[in-house]
């Protein structure tokens, strides 16, 4: 280690050091940019490939070449083959594409929400479920099912689930706020307390409901992309894409929250405002995904961790890479859910938990070995 070099000019604002004293930049800007473009580009390509395969596979198989051809024809380009099966075109555009689009949107929304949540809490174990988005949405959805509410037609469940998620999150936030500040631990514990109440409410609703309602609640909670339609995609898309856009704008400041609340304030972050804004975005993103697809666990927890392994903790890259990675993951998971067992549509929430749980355990063990664990 070299001794501290007394600065020839102590004001940090003025230069005048010899070239030898100056440390070589550890990572040049060009390489960082290349890494970013490489990762995001790679994930983008992976998403397109996954979408092409996901749309092609199913009870009626359409080869990926024909899937691409069909899309290009719709875009007005007469390239590539059209689906050879007489029902191919219809299947693709009325069943598969909306489903793949929904999977991609939900995955992107959930993973982005997870990345934001971990950033805003400065805690790698946080996920949107912590502040009650999912459980609030579940209670609202179950109420609709049990009480047979139909004020918004077939969309009543989705509508109420969205509002339920949003309201619960805001409730947790308001309850944990004291003297104009929120402490992270208080927020998490308030979330746990409220989650206990909502799960009691959910149990009561299942007790109230008849067999059919119970079944409906259970399957809603398991999560499924079955029966996704373009109209639903049309509702989720602006919420998800808008949320991701705001998330990208918030990303640079989230890095500073890693310093802790006080130190973040010292470098000029209005911590309370940033946290409030981020939590609203998280609630909107998660509620949008959950409302039509049910509860799909672990995407928000695992994807940001995977991205951090590859790209480091900087949120400028973490947020967009998580969005793309989440989309890829859910498109692939949905493909698996549809095709793993012939003529059966497995609940996707079950699959993500089945894979996500052990994977997360492995991540924990690995982090303990390499970086002394997460304090």
């Amino acid at each position, binding site marked *: 280690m*070299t001794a501290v070099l007394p600065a020839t000019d102590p004001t*940090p*604002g003025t230069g005048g050091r010899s070239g030898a004293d100056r440390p070589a930049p550890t990572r040049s800007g060009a390489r960082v940019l290349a890494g970013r473009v490489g990762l995001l580009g790679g994930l983008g390509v992976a998403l397109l490939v996954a979408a092409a395969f996901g749309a092609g596979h199913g009870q009626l198989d359409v080869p990926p070449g024909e899937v691409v051809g069909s899309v290009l024809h719709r875009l007005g380009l007469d390239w590539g083959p059209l689906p050879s099966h007489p029902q191919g075109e219809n299947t693709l555009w009325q069943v598969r594409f909306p489903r793949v689009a929904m999977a991609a949107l939900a995955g992107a929304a959930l993973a982005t929400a997870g990345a934001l949540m971990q950033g805003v809490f400065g805690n790698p174990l946080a996920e949107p479920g912590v502040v009650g988005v999912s459980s609030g949405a579940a209670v609202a959805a179950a109420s609709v099912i049990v009480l047979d509410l139909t004020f918004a037609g077939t969309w009543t469940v989705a509508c109420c689930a969205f509002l339920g998620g949003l309201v619960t999150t805001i409730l947790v936030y308001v309850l944990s706020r004291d003297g104009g500040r929120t402490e992270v631990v208080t927020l998490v514990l308030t979330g746990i307390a409220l989650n206990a109440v909502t799960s009691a409410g959910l149990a009561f609703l299942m007790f109230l409901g008849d067999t059919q309602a119970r079944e409906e609640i259970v399957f809603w909670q398991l999560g499924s992309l079955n029966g996704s339609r373009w109209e639903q995609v049309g509702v989720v898309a602006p919420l998800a894409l808008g949320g991701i856009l705001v998330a990208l704008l918030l990303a640079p400041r989230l890095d500073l929250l890693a310093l802790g609340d006080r130190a973040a304030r010292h470098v000029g972050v209005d911590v309370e405002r940033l946290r409030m804004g981020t939590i609203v975005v998280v609630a909107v993103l998660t509620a949008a995904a959950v409302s039509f697809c049910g509860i799909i666990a672990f995407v928000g927890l695992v994807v940001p961790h995977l991205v951090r392994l590859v790209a480091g903790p900087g949120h400028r890259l973490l947020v967009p890479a998580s969005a793309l990675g989440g989309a890829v993951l859910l498109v692939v998971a949905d493909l698996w859910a549809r095709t793993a067992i012939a003529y059966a549509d497995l609940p996707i929430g079950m699959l993500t938990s089945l894979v996500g749980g052990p994977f997360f355990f492995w991540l924990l063990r690995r982090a303990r070995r390499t970086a002394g664990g997460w304090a």
Partner: protein
Amino acid sequence: MSGAATAISARGVGVTVEGHRILEGVDVDVHPGELLALVGPNGAGKSTLLGVLAGDTTPSAGTVELDGRPLRRVPTRELAQLRAVQLQKQGLAFGFRVEDVVRMGRSPWHRTPAEDDDDRVVAESMTRADVTTLAGRLFPTLSGGEQARTSFARLLAQAAPVLMLNEPTAALDIKHQEALLDVLRRTVRAGSAAVVVLHDLSLAAAYADRVCVLADGRVRADGSPAEVLTGPLLTEVYGHPVDVVEHAGHLVVVPVRSHAPAASPTLQEVP
């Protein structure tokens, strides 16, 4: 006190937490070009006072002005351009690299003309805090002293005219203790103002322009090291006999020990 503009001016500051009086009637001024050491026994209110001066804690009584403006009126971001703070404990939630952590100090200057200097200021700050060789290391894997030096580099990178540090030397070895305070003093000579909480009174004597002794939430003494750091006063404040001796032109503060020094190493056989 001279009529020069004050960087920080606190008047009648009081802090009461759940009925406990932590600070009462504290008046402190810090001028540009001045390094003020805050000293005092445990629980005297040093950290609380620093928190009040930094704008973290709203005092229950009194006012604080930073650069002539009431502290509470200055927006968070503007405040970060005026003062930088190094806390006693450094923590980081994610594995950022040292260089990234130092660069976080530049964030108050984001989207200002000063942003163009970012790379140079970050490199210089890392050199001055002696963390250049650690640039690529992950912050959570560093030792306590290395983390403290990284935080010091971040403080320097913020390039604020007022610097506040809470026990910056606590985790450092002798070389880096001296080096840090030397860098700090040079920064102050160039026109900054600094408030440093120190436990090591000899360090305070050697580097501070003024020493403010806090005891039981009040200012017990405030003046040049030679005026303030005297045996009788320190003995009274710390409740332990303290001697102040001169060594090579510097004041050295040593506790008086009642037990006899261990003259020769005595080895005891383990039964």
